[in-house]
């Protein structure tokens, strides 16, 4: 039995500092997921002969990843130094690994989307002899983007998990599953909004799989987390956003299942899914920042785990020692 912790703090001031990240980062979490899932749908469209799905997914991937990258750069303390992200590769830094994933993904997504734009404009882009090159590598670029799509959707979960921010850190085992599921349902939702229903069969399936994964992973995550560190997921603004996220995901999933072949229902469901994903990202993001601002979420779980280790006879690994 773990004894009740005696909670005291230094004038109620935070122990850890919240990341100095604004809404831009939460927007990136959302857009990165949309881009990743769209690249997978684009490749599927490319390989199974669904040209409108392919085109719209590729354009969606480029728009989302561009918007996300702009948000990321804007959030830097020194935006003019954004290229410093690529001056080294550090496997211990999820931000470094992620910067390279984002760069690699953007290359493939960019080339394949430019090919679509060129086609849309009736070969009017001033490409000259490069048009032949573009047409030759377009398919490979779609594959390359899809290869980096999964890592793009998942690394942000590691980025948040690998911090001392109590709620994010406590969620580190399940958060990747939440984020990839959210990416699936959001990108499928975008495809259902932009693309006629005759080509969105796979998107509808991906949407339903995403909803099931998202709701299940979130529930498992909340159950397996430290109960104190999980509290911010249910409180205040973050709690409200995550509650609505689940409702919209379920509604969007049901709409997809029951009326996904109707253009209007499909588009409405797609919008619900996009909103659900955005709310998931903002909710998790805000819950973490809130957990860093209140010393209780740092001190109580740490005191509990220390007491539990001592109760189990492990006494050699505490930072506080009597000698």
């Amino acid at each position: 039995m773990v004894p009740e912790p005696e909670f005291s703090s230094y004038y109620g001031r935070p122990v850890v500092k919240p990341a100095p990240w604004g809404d831009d980062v939460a927007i990136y979490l959302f857009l990165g997921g949309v881009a990743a899932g769209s690249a997978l749908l684009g490749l599927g469209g490319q390989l199974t002969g669904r040209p409108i799905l392919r085109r719209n997914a590729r354009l969606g991937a480029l728009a989302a990843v561009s918007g996300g990258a702009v948000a990321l750069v804007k959030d830097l303390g020194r935006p003019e130094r954004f290229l410093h992200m690529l001056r080294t590769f550090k496997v211990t830094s999820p931000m470094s690994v992620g910067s390279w994933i984002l760069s690699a993904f953007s290359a493939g997504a960019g080339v394949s989307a430019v090919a679509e734009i060129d086609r849309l404009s009736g070969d009017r882009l001033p490409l000259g002899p490069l048009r032949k090159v573009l047409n030759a590598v377009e398919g490979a670029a779609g594959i390359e983007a899809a290869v980096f799509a999964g890592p793009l959707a998942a690394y942000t979960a590691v980025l948040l998990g690998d911090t001392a921010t109590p709620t994010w850190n406590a969620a580190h085992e399940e958060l990747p599953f939440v984020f990839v599921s959210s990416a699936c349902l959001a990108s499928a939702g975008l495809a259902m909004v932009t693309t006629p229903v005759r080509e969105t069969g796979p998107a509808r399936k991906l949407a339903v799989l995403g909803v099931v994964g998202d709701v299940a992973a979130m529930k498992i995550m909340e159950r397996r987390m430290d109960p104190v560190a999980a509290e911010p997921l249910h409180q205040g603004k973050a709690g409200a956003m995550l509650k609505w996220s689940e409702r919209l995901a379920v509604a969007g999933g049901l709409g997809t299942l029951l009326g996904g072949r109707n253009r209007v229902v499909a588009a409405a469901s797609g919008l619900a899914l996009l909103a659900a994903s955005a709310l998931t990202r903002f909710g998790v993001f805000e819950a973490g920042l809130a957990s860093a601002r209140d010393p209780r979420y740092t001190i109580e779980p740490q005191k509990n785990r220390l007491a539990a280790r001592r109760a189990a006879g492990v006494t050699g690994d505490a930072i506080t020692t009597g000698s």
Partner: protein
Amino acid sequence: MGQLSGPTDPTADAHWEHNHPRKGFFTDTSICIGCKACEVACKEWNHNPQDGNLELLGSSYDNTGALGASTWRHVAFIEQGQDRIAEARESGRALVSLGMPRIGPPAPAATDLAEADTTPPDTADFRWLMSSDVCKHCTHAGCLDVCPTGALFRTEFGTVVVQDDVCNGCGTCVAGCPFGVIERRSNGTVKVATSREDQHAGHPAVPNAGIAQKCTLCYDRLVADETPACAKACPTTSIKFGDHDDMVETARERVADLHAQGMTEARLYGANENDGVGGTGSVFLLLDEPEVYGLPPDPRVPTADLPKMYRRAGMAVAGMAAAAALAFVGGRA
């Protein structure tokens, strides 16, 4: 890449090819008088700007608040009554009786403190805890691990320093520090008090705005074989500076002395290389639980779990790819 957790020599891990001893602080809070000379000396030497506006925080004599981008030493003030003193004595006694494993010869003090004279050597019904907090320069530094640009690096002294011209202010290190030390410096918060209205010389530009800032253990002084500004200025030798091994040994002797004097509330913070950050470069002697001083009771460097996080992320990526493949098989829906 060096190891991610557990006891290690951080300079060797960082591939420095020499036997330079690791440097560190031992901050003995039992002899701190709260004069804040360390805060002032640090500000002056490092040209750190004013932190926010001048205001009274209502927390005893602490109007600094916390460590931050422009505050690299922070003196905490805690006022306690008789009950809390008794509790601190008990929690300290419990720590001693845990019988921590240690390296080197056993401390000279008696390990059984049941018989120790616990008559308070000073005022019995009130005490003032004063403690000068600083960057811990961890063996496994969360900030350094997660820095994507390489701006944070391990020096030849085993300390952790930001390269101002490399950092792009991404802020990952701020969330990565288990002690809430490093912070991104904002600009525009500096107000300079001028003596006369007509002498507004304009606000001095804030140096290094928008990038992560923290204690460098006075890297510029160490390379010149000088003592860091805070330790140099400390009038009571509460802040000691030297080779890390010597600091830990001094800390162990001091806590044993205090125990022998009946001050069972004395305990060390950061002297155990088996803790969650592999031991800290800055060791503290505290007179109550760490959280009372605003320190985390069981910090753990997040990167220690990074291999597991990458594995979980890999599984999630596989799941996403499988879901996408599943969505497209089975012909046209």
